[in-house]
């Protein structure tokens, strides 16, 4: 029975995740990176099953939903000038670098765009967690850091919708680009209008105001899955549907209750998504790609750090704070993997890019959070070197 075997392997995966995660939290490592490694090891024992794949798909959907739910639309509008300026600076420093690297590696346009997105987007999960752990929430550079992350998340969500639209269309040409853009904007517009009118008449509030816990969960799940499904049906990414559903529900009073209800689903399915991603990375590919991964890690870390430093200086932060801002932008994580994973799940396009992303994200997540933590050492070294010159 294939189902029984799948369930046993799922159980083993979860147990392995627990032990690995337990060790990781002991040494304060990012869970994302550890889960991918667990997946890479487990592929030697059993294949990715239909069940794992299904849960992994839900993982992307729930993760993006949570992003939407926790996304602060209010602060996006309140600080829009600052967010826009810092965000554009960060984009200009890092996105073109990915395009250049893609061109250098001889990728086609699609892969080049994906690589640019993967290199560009900093992990807001890892960074936000590190800010709290390292007690940096009051530091002068932190507000700029968070503004950059908001811009990146918004940008990459739109980018994801667009790129998946293009992949489903088949190839890039002027007509296709226009068609996908129109479809994406229409979909976004629909949700924005829905959100605005709901804010006025409170009808979403009224619809989801259900006392019964079980029915509440079922209703919320149906909203998430239907939005994701609709997006997939019209040829966009299901992830973007979930993200917009999250944005829509974030304006309601029940936001807190929704987070509580959906969190366990999200944690479970996201963990499985990372494992499935790890399992899909081919060992043979990995070893030959390690030097390239390290190379990309080093130069993209430089571009992030330099971009952050530039932004910090522009806003009259001290040299120390500007450098800290730059170093804090290095960790990459979930969004890079989602970008690679969304592609990985599409059977039509087997990209070698996936293995490279795996290596790259592992390096960025692990080394990035160490760099962020030990940034004071780097900064000291850097400043001393500068002054001694």
């Amino acid at each position, binding site marked *: 029975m294939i189902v029984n075997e799948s369930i046993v392997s799922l159980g083993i995966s979860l147990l392995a995740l627990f032990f690995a995660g337990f060790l990781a939290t002991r040494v304060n490592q990012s869970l994302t990176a550890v889960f991918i490694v667990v997946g890479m090891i487990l592929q030697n024992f059993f294949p990715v099953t239909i069940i794992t794949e299904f849960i992994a798909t839900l993982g992307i959907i729930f993760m993006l939903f949570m992003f939407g739910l926790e996304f602060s639309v209010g602060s996006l509008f309140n600080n829009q000038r600052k967010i826009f300026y810092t965000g554009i600076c960060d984009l200009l420093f890092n996105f073109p670098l990915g395009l250049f690297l893609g061109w250098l590696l001889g990728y086609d346009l699609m892969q080049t765009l994906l690589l640019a997105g993967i290199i560009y987007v900093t992990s807001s999960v890892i960074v936000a967690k590190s800010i709290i752990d390292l007690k940096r*929430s009051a*530091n002068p550079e932190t*507000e700029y850091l*968070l*503004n950059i992350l908001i811009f990146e998340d918004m940008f990459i969500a739109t980018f994801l919708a667009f790129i998946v639209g293009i992949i489903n269309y088949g190839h890039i040409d002027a007509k296709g680009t226009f068609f996908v853009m129109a479809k994406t904007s229409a979909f976004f517009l629909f949700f924005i209008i829905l959100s605005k009118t709901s804010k006025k008449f409170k009808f979403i509030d009224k619809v989801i105001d259900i006392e019964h816990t079980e029915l509440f969960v079922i209703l919320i799940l149906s909203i998430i899955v239907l939005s994701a499904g609709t997006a997939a049906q019209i040829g966009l990414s299901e992830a973007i549907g979930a993200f917009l559903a999250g944005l829509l529900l974030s304006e309601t009073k029940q936001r807190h209750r929704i987070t509580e209800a959906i969190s366990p689903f999200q944690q479970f399915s996201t963990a499985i998504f990372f494992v499935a991603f790890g399992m899909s990375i081919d060992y043979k590919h990995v070893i030959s790609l390690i030097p390239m991964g390290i190379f990309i890690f080093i130069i993209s870390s430089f571009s992030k750090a330099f971009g952050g430093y530039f932004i910090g200086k522009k806003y009259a932060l001290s040299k*120390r704070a500007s450098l800290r801002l730059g170093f804090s932008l290095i960790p990459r994580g979930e969004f890079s993997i989602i970008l690679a994973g969304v592609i990985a799940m599409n059977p039509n396009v087997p990209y070698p890019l996936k293995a490279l992303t795996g290596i790259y994200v592992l390096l960025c997540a692990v080394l990035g959070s160490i760099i962020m933590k030990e940034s004071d050492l780097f900064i000291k070294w850097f400043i001393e070197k500068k002054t001694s010159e």
Partner: protein
Amino acid sequence: MSEIKECDLPGIGKKFTLELDSDDKLVVVIHSSGEREVFKFVKDNDEPTSVTTLTDEEARQIGAILSGTYFQPVIEEEQKLAMKNVTMEWIKIEFNSTLANKKIEELDVRKKTGVTITTIIRGETVIPNPPSTEIIRPQDTIIIIGSNEQVKNFISTFEIKSSIENDRQ
């Protein structure tokens, strides 16, 4: 009154910055979880010198203490204000004093000078609010209270030479 700067920390919470008179900065971050962090930044330093993490409940308690609803101290300035026109004087009674060996009612202190004798200190014993029949003895210390004018008046009327204001605690 210093200005409080407010700033959103999307995904984390809200930050409030208070520039103190000492040029240090006090920063309070209220996390979305309700947790509060209080940071102190010394002048011109962009890294905090101290961090205190408080739960929602602890923060409210501390807040009540700081705002003075938990315990209201008498602020020094108010005390000064109340005492501005009132003087208390400690007066040692000499053997040859015009006050010595007389009853308080006999001396007619209040009518003559406006001053009130609030306390008589006799060796180890203290007599607060002495009755008007009490006799003031040599070597006593009396504490009088009145307006500045009245006290001056008292001192000249009874030819007091030594007041021991400076010795008081």
